[in-house]
């Protein structure tokens, strides 16, 4: 299977372990003080800083173009200045220590400024006679307080801030400004505040769920890498260097179980593959024999009886290699057949490096004949046997694709 270019970077496992080492060796450092699980919120808060700058720029532009229509330009400038000051502070905080932005006091301050702006809104514009409504200066900036509250504290605090801002804008708009025609405008503004609170809180909830899952997956991967580099290496050393057969046996079994856990084994499948895996496990318990099973993913599906027969025959061949041939390793190989003259679908071989035996002298009563030939020929398959002291024994199977009993 071809991997994307990312697959070339084979060292992340290793470097991940190193990063952890480095962090452990330098316990003190301001960056470490921020808990890892808040990184999502910090990212969002940095985004909100950008939002503040956009809205404050817009307010400044609006102020400049409508300066002739304002009744109290001085108050407008002071209001803008306060909002600007908070925006600048939040920028510095986000850059240096984002933890500041997550304090309730920061959110409360921003909400208060928002409330103030909305209340002043009426004063700034108060007394204008034109029918057309003017752009209200702080219209969008206070949203940032709702977003921050939603990002850090969740839905309820965000709704509280939204409610506070909505109430202020009602008061500012209706009482001070006395705008009789602004019901719709103020109503939609309030609706937007509430929607921003709900929307952001929901999105944050989803994001934090996703980020929890991602960090869990990453932790699993790192653990696998650590086990891979440490424990498997140790098991390999024990298997290689110890003379204690029981210890070696234990190490081998642990090695196998750990591999199965880390990379998975095909044993969950039924039929042929399951039978091979089961036989391999059985043989590994009782004999000093390594079974290598090479079954590709693109094998065509076999009918249940063929699957069963092939599984049994392969298991028998593996057991034979272990019991009689004194083999050190067995390779079970299978591949799909495309244009087999007999129409078979799958080829499979079981090869060992054992002592071999004389095929012709083999008596018909021996287990091999009975258990292997009968099984495979019973489902319309073909068996071949090759054996010599030099190359060991190989049992070959051609199965599938033809109706049972036909040959």
């Amino acid at each position, binding site marked *: *299977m*071809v*991997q*994307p*270019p990312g*697959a*070339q970077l*084979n*060292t992340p*496992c*290793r470097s991940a372990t*190193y990063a952890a080492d480095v962090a452990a060796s330098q316990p003190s450092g301001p960056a470490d003080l921020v808990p890892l699980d808040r990184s999502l919120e910090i990212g969002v808060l940095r985004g909100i800083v950008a939002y503040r700058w956009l809205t404050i720029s817009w307010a400044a532009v609006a102020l400049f173009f409508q300066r002739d229509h304002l009744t109290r330009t001085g108050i407008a400038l002071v209001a803008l200045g306060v909002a600007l000051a908070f925006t600048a502070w939040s920028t510095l905080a986000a850059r240096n220590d984002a933890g500041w932005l997550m304090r309730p006091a920061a959110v409360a301050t921003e909400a208060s400024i928002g409330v103030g702006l909305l209340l002043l809104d009426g004063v700034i514009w108060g007394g204008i006679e034109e029918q057309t409504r003017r752009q209200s200066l702080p219209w969008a900036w206070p949203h940032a307080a709702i977003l921050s509250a939603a990002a850090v504290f969740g839905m309820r605090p965000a709704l509280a801030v939204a409610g506070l801002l909505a109430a202020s804008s009602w008061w500012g708009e209706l009482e001070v400004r006395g705008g009789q025609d602004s019901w719709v405008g103020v109503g939609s503004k309030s609706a937007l505040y509430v929607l921003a609170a709900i929307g952001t809180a929901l999105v944050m909830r989803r994001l934090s769920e996703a980020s929890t899952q991602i960090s869990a997956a990453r932790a699993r991967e790192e653990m696998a890498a650590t086990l*891979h*580099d440490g424990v*498997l*290496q140790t098991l*390999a*050393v024990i*298997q*290689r*260097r110890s003379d204690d057969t029981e210890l070696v046996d234990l190490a081998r079994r642990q*090695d196998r179980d750990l*591999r199965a856990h880390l*990379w998975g084994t095909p044993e969950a499948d039924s039929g042929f593959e399951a039978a091979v895996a089961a036989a391999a496990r059985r043989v590994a318990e009782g004999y000093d024999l*390594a079974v*290598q099973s*090479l079954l*590709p*993913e*693109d094998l065509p599906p076999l009918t249940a009886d063929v699957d069963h027969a092939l599984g049994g025959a392969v298991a028998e061949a593996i057991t034979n290699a272990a019991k009689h041939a004194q083999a*050190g*390793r*067995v*390779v079970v*190989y299978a*591949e*799909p057949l495309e244009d087999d003259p007999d129409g078979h679908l799958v080829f499979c*071989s079981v*090869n*060992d*490096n054992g002592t071999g035996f004389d095929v012709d002298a083999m008596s018909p009563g021996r287990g091999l004949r009975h258990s292997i030939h009968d099984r495979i020929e019973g489902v319309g398959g073909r068996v071949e046997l090759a054996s010599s002291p*030099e*190359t060991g024994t*190989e049992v070959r199977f051609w199965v599938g694709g033809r109706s049972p009993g036909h040959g």
Partner: protein
Amino acid sequence: MAELNHVRVVIADDHTIWRSGVRADLGENFTVVGEAADAGEAIAAIDREKPDLVLCDLHMPDGGGLRVARERGEAAKIVILTVSEAERDLLDAVSAGAAGYLLKSTEPDELRISLWKAAQGEPVFSPSLAALVLTEFRRLKTSSPDEGLSTREREVLQHVARGHTYKAIGEELFISQKTVENHVRNILKKLHLNRKQELIRYALEKGIE
């Protein structure tokens, strides 16, 4: 290849205990001329000692076995010795230019034989690697004869995958062992090429220049 009485080996692995274990396993036909604990040290040792063979772990600091194979695969025969059975690791190692890929669970006898062969220029190709390559080419199903495997190459690969030695394969196919080795070498070259093209295609699709 000159006649080898002693194969000069560099062992690269970040575990000291593993290096001393392998050193003990190699026996008298091999001389360990250098040890390295990371990719950089391994490359330095190769440049200094000009060994016949480099036994190299896959996961090491400083770039790992893949970096060693990529940067010194032409200068020395790099055999990757790893605990990883992951398909990706196998194929990446071959693509990077490794001359062989063996598992650390390989029996000492088999390890010695494989390394001896690798030192003499034989491509060390384990049955599992052969099976993977076969599957890979089946998936590619290229129509161009240059990219796909020839019938003979596929036959050779099937035999390797089934666990046969080059000698046995030669006897069965009525060709010399040298010819079998050449086939295997060509297969590796094609695999390398296919993989490169596949990566380029992938990069173009994703819009990476």
